[in-house]
């Protein structure tokens, strides 16, 4: 092989080596981030297979045996299924209502004359700035007067009102990016506002609706504050509230709490996997030029 050929080969190889090194350095922060996220999750997952004694003696280690005793004990408590069901009801109705109302408000903001839309949007942003704690007492008193305390309806109403602004914020941002020509084409085709919203804007807002749904689902599913404030009856408790039962005054049963946390995470993982495909960008590709 001639020298010139060898030089050419070297020249071909060099950039590849550089790219690999750059890639490693680029991914290094992601690796650190992944470790920071995965480590506590793994410890929680491992803890669910340990008893209390094992957990205290070896909190960081891999369980000696993969016993499902904690999970069995968790579901031996008949109420756990009820709590799970309560969480599903409250979360699903809340998230559905948030998406429905927020998408309508976002559509209105996009379609209203600019200055009116900006005012409405301003109110929404202000709504996001009010700390939850400030509203706790007024909300409690309001629900009491409306006779909605210790009812799922009351909890759902407060949850929807609380998370509506952030959902409107996300959806408005997305709807503003949809081509205006589509709305105009639909109105010339003879569509009313409701038809434009339901048959054009809503189907095209799939990715942002999925993002908002996951965002709200995680917050509402894990929410402890509002159920703690407004729910008293044992039969109406949600999962996070029920998990508090494992926290005693003198002793906390961490393996049981962790098992509950793992079980409570399953719907979120399912939701994420299910909605993930809607994240695919470019839903509007092909509608306009280019």
């Amino acid at each position, binding site marked *: 092989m001639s020298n010139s050929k060898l030089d050419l080969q070297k020249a071909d190889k060099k950039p590849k080596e550089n790219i690999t090194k750059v890639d490693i350095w680029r991914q290094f922060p992601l690796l650190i981030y992944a470790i920071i996220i995965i480590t506590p999750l793994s410890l929680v997952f491992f803890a669910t297979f340990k008893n209390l004694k094992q957990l205290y003696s070896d909190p960081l280690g891999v369980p000696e045996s993969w016993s499902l005793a904690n999970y069995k004990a968790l579901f031996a408590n008949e109420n756990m299924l009820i709590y799970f069901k309560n969480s599903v009801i409250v979360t699903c109705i809340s998230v559905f209502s948030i998406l429905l109302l927020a998408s309508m408000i976002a559509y209105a903001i996009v379609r209203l004359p600019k200055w009116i839309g900006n005012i409405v949007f301003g109110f929404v942003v202000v709504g996001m700035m009010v700390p939850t704690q400030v509203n706790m007492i007024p909300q409690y008193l309001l629900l009491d007067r409306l006779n909605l305390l210790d009812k799922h309806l009351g909890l759902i109403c407060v949850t929807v009102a609380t998370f509506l602004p952030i959902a409107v914020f996300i959806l408005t941002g997305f709807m503003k990016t949809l081509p205006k020509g589509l709305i105009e084409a639909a109105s010339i085709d003879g569509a009313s506002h409701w038809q434009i919203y339901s048959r054009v804007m809503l189907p095209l807002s799939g990715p942002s609706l999925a993002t908002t749904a996951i965002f709200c689902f995680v917050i509402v599913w894990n929410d402890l504050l509002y159920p703690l404030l407004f729910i008293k009856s044992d039969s109406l408790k949600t999962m996070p509230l029920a998990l508090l039962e494992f926290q005693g005054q003198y002793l906390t049963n961490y393996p049981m709490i962790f098992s509950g946390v793992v079980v409570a995470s399953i719907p979120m993982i399912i939701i994420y996997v299910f909605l993930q495909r809607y994240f695919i960008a470019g839903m509007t590709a*092909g509608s306009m030029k*280019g």
Partner: protein
Amino acid sequence: MAEVKLQGIYKRFKDTVAVSNFNLEIKDGEFIVLVGPSGCGKSTTLRMVAGLEQPSEGKIYIGDKDVTYAEPKNRDIAMVFQDYALYPHMNVFKNMAFGLQLRKMPKDEIKKRVETAAERLGISHLLHRTPRQLSGGQRQRVALGRSIVRDPQVFLMDEPLSNLDAKLRVQMRAEIVKLQKGLNTTTIYVTHDQVEAMTMGDRIVVMKDGFMQQVGTPSEIYHEPANMFVAGFVGSPSMNFIEGEFVQKDGKCFFTAQGIEVELPGKLSDKSLSSKSVVLGIRPEDIRVDVEKTDNLTSPVECKVELIEDLGAEEIVFLKTKGGQEFKARISSDLSKAQAGNNVNAYFKLNKIHIFDAEEGSKVPLSA
């Protein structure tokens, strides 16, 4: 099908006047083209007819109905957008059927209409594809199809060909004209391309800065431009404008400029001019180079050939007079003897000379 009338239309956006005193009567089945440079108000005018914008003043009639403030859906119009505006989540069939479904038309009728329109446009095989699976030309056909299935009173087209490549544009141009003639539907077509305007429209409306400059048939616009803007905007290469002066000698009228003195075919009234300064306009194809002088030509203008652009069938010859005045002539390649660097005599066709007021730009009539 219906007549469209625009009476005294103004459109203001805060301090900007986008359209000013626009008056036009479009006949039933007529193909009218609004043409002008960007920002001249042609799209705004179209959007006002569509109902997507409301006029600040004036009235719009479709047929006998005053639709000035009517919703777009109540105007019985269809519009083809520059960017197609196809619904990306629907396939071609659903895109075309959407307007009919909203009008609660029976399913069989919808199917029949969509299939007929698709066949007419040659997109029958694409009915189950989504817009993202189509090429630019196919998308444009679907957008046209969506309009024609509705059988509206008026078609509105907002630069529908501007995103297509040159070859496809020529093809679609002819197809749209054929389609319009076949359907005989009143059509308002907006474009900034003067070739599209000349080849497609029954009548052309030339606009500038929100003002209507001239309305007329393509031939009128080309041969009898109302002012310098229209004369310069229409035609490629554009009309030559030579600044000079109007001089009267021995009862005859002459135009003089740098190295040019030509006798005008008619007389100019001093009253019709705001000053002695005038602009002579002559289209490149109305200039003859190195030919025998005939009665319908001016006296020769001595000039030098600066450059020749050979376009195959014809040549664009860039000429410069001794006084430094530049202009160009378009000559058939078969007849051209010009060579770069040579001195030649150029002649203007007498009946093709246009005289414009240098200050106002308006055309100055030549009396016999």
